[in-house]
């Protein structure tokens, strides 16, 4: 396997031009912490963003940060923290689940549309991503979006790049909208709720005016509701949420490092990280559909699970044998609405079942067209998301 580590965008264009000319596929990589996510790709060479690093733009008063794609996420987070700011979408760290090492990059956060618990209030990575530069399959350097948060000029290729997992282009630079870090964070913890009651509590809190930034349920343990803001507002909102939730029991309030650890774990899939031989699925559905969907799966499989996003994000582990539960999970998701992604499984399972949600025939046709329009020679991570794209 050849490893290409361009240090400039023109060098990256050259690597792509050579690969496209010889029609030899490239695996695209940032820090390599998510390499085992997706269908196994066949490639002779690896194109890494590791040589494209550094924050290129940071204007705290404009709430915007730009960085070359290979910049470690840690560096971006630290730069923002110095000025009391953060990425609003709370990107997950896949190392916990996948057992990988290395440093996640800001480019991969964009490419995978990686979000965490705060997604329910502040949107996904793609909602904060306001600009990209990338090399397309014609070896051209392309820009879309920019550094301003309101921009409707032209077709929004930024969104297309977000969540395309390196199948449409090689990101060289990304620009995100950022937000102030809250002065105070508090979490209400309710004990002893069933899944259905817990999701009801989470939805009730999320539908209150008190701006819930995290809403998770750990079955058999507790149900968590997080609020963030100025200290005086938090006192008030805690009181109001207690009132709104009084039918669901008497909550404790957790703050500080213990609460931060808890939310980091929820973000990263930590409750299901062990045992490591189990497969892990990530399912998105309408929150109130969550418990029924889980019940249908658990009736057919040895499943363990927890909920984020007010019940709408289900993390679920299954034995990694056979299809890792794909048939039962796909059937349940089809009934409830939503989509499921196999985040962790041995290579032979990922080669045999759909890792990403299978698409309807017309959407698959459109997706193949889009792939061809950006990567006509099919050199970028071929087949990582779906066979043929």
């Amino acid at each position: 396997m050849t490893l290409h580590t361009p240090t400039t965008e023109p060098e990256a264009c050259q690597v792509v031009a050579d690969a496209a000319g010889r029609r030899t596929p490239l695996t695209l990589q940032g820090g390599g912490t998510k390499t085992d996510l997706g269908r196994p790709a066949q490639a002779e060479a690896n194109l890494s963003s590791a040589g494209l690093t550094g924050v290129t733009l940071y204007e705290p008063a404009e709430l915007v940060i730009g960085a070359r794609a290979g910049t470690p996420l840690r560096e971006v987070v630290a730069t923002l923290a110095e000025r009391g700011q953060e990425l609003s979408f709370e990107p997950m760290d896949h190392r916990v689940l996948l057992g990988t090492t290395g440093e996640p990059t800001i480019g991969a956060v964009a490419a995978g549309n990686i979000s965490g618990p705060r997604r329910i209030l502040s949107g996904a990575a793609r909602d904060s991503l306001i600009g990209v530069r990338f090399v397309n399959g014609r070896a051209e350097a392309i820009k879309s979006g920019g550094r301003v948060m309101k921009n409707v000029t032209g077709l929004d290729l930024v969104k297309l790049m977000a969540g395309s997992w390196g199948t449409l282009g090689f990101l060289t630079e990304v620009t995100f909208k950022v937000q102030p870090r809250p002065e105070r964070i508090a979490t209400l913890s309710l004990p002893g709720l069933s899944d259905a009651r817990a999701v009801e509590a989470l939805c009730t809190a999320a539908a209150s005016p008190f701006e819930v930034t995290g809403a998770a349920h750990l079955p058999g343990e507790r149900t968590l509701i997080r609020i963030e803001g100025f200290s005086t507002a938090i006192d008030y909102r805690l009181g109001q949420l207690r009132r709104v939730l009084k039918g669901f029991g008497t909550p404790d309030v957790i703050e500080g490092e213990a609460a931060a650890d808890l939310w980091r774990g929820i973000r990263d899939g930590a409750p299901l990280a062990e045992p490591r031989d189990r497969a892990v699925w990530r399912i998105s559905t309408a929150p109130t559909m969550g418990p029924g969907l889980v019940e249908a799966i658990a009736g057919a499989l040895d499943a363990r699970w927890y909920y984020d996003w007010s019940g709408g994000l289900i993390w679920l582990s299954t034995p990694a044998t056979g299809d890792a539960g794909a048939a039962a999970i796909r059937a349940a998701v089809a009934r409830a609405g939503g989509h499921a992604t196999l985040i962790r499984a041995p290579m032979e399972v990922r080669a045999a079942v759909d890792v990403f949600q299978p698409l309807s025939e017309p959407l698959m046709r459109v997706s193949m067209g889009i792939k061809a329009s950006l990567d006509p020679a099919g050199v970028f991570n071929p087949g990582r998301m779906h066979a043929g794209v």
Partner: protein
Amino acid sequence: MSIAFPVPDEAVLARRDEIIAGLARLVHPEALIVTEDERRAFETDALTAYRRMPLAVVLPSTTEEVSAVLRFCHEHGVKVVPRGAGTSLAGGAIPQEDAIILGVAKMNRMIAVDFMNRTARVQSGITNLAISQAVAHEGFFYAPDPSSQLACTIAGNIAMNSGGAHCLKYGVTTNNLLGVTLVLLDGTVVQIGGEHLDSEGYDLLGLVCGSEGQLGVVTEAVVRILRAAEGARPALMGFDSVEDAGACVAAIIGAGIIPVALEYMDRPAIKICEAFAHAGYPLDVEAMLIIEVEGSDEEIDDMLGRIVEIAKPFNPRAVKVAASEAEAAAIWKGRKSAFGATGRISDYICMDGTIPTGQLPHVLSRIDEIVKGYGLGVANVFHAGDGNLHPLVLFDINKPGEMEKAEAAGEDILRLCVEVGGCLTGEHGVGIEKRDLMRCQFTDEDLHQQMRVRGVFDPAWLMNPAKVFPLDGRVA
């Protein structure tokens, strides 16, 4: 009249009767508008200086009818201009003689509201405001609030990725859209997204949003509805200089406060709006900010207290915190009537570029120079928190050549926005208005890539073809 239209296809014009007969077989008789008098109502949108009579107008009532009409147009090579309420300021819905108008205005029902999941499923012809009105009894609202929200449709909002005064906190259409039913040009009906978060596969929802009716026609949408804050209250502050106002905006945001709205008006705009709305605006300042915060009464007091404190070094004058609902309404009435009030005293064109907010003083002084260079006036009203400018270039349509001068000044202003790191359009869209400026912001490679993606949906350039991309050098 500097914006070019493509030469109508004579062969299509010659087939008009045949095309109308074909359409008549597909839709309810009331859905098809063919007489000249009735078609005239559709010959322009909110870019009223430009008009073209469409071949015919079709106003379907169902997704199936939309599908049948698009399939027909696809098979017969007939161009289609999709239309919501026709409120586009960029000419996004302006017809062309060899195209039919396909309007969704009759498909205006609320289909389902789900307060627990905080979603609403609507037909795309519903107006923006009607969504908020339909959920208001439970304290909910739909966040994007373009000034035209009383009339504009969610279909048009999706086509243009519309914003509004509150997007600093709540985002624009693309951030509040969960799913669409999209009819492709060949008549195929596809579902993208749904009641859940993040659509599967490539982010086609994000691609369709803001695609200006060139990828297909949205007939249904699932949008995020939000529980409204307990209360909201604006404050206004006057400043002696643009620099002070700009620095105050930066200081507020730098202090970790994201107001729900942060609006800027310059001296001419203040004067125009005050004369119309009697809002109590200070008339002796160079710049004014309207800053709105949300929450409980206590939270609002706390936040506005912090903001007033932060503003002190910038010598604010005439600081006024709304003390009642009536005062709050008056403060907003002035801002919201800015375009209408300006229209009473002058003809104007409204520009929509976005700039990095740090460039505000520089850009405002350059705008002044540009406009004066053409012998015209300007009033500036805009969203200061996100840098989305709305310079209103004032002119007199009765004076020969003035409109052309205003358009030229507008173009210079947009070039300036791009030059300082911003963009041509923050929320109105490209339409025909900014189409020929696209090469200021994008390279040919950038535009070709956009057009190739567009071409996946419409290789023959039948969907809203005169818009967005320069007429020359097109690819599919």
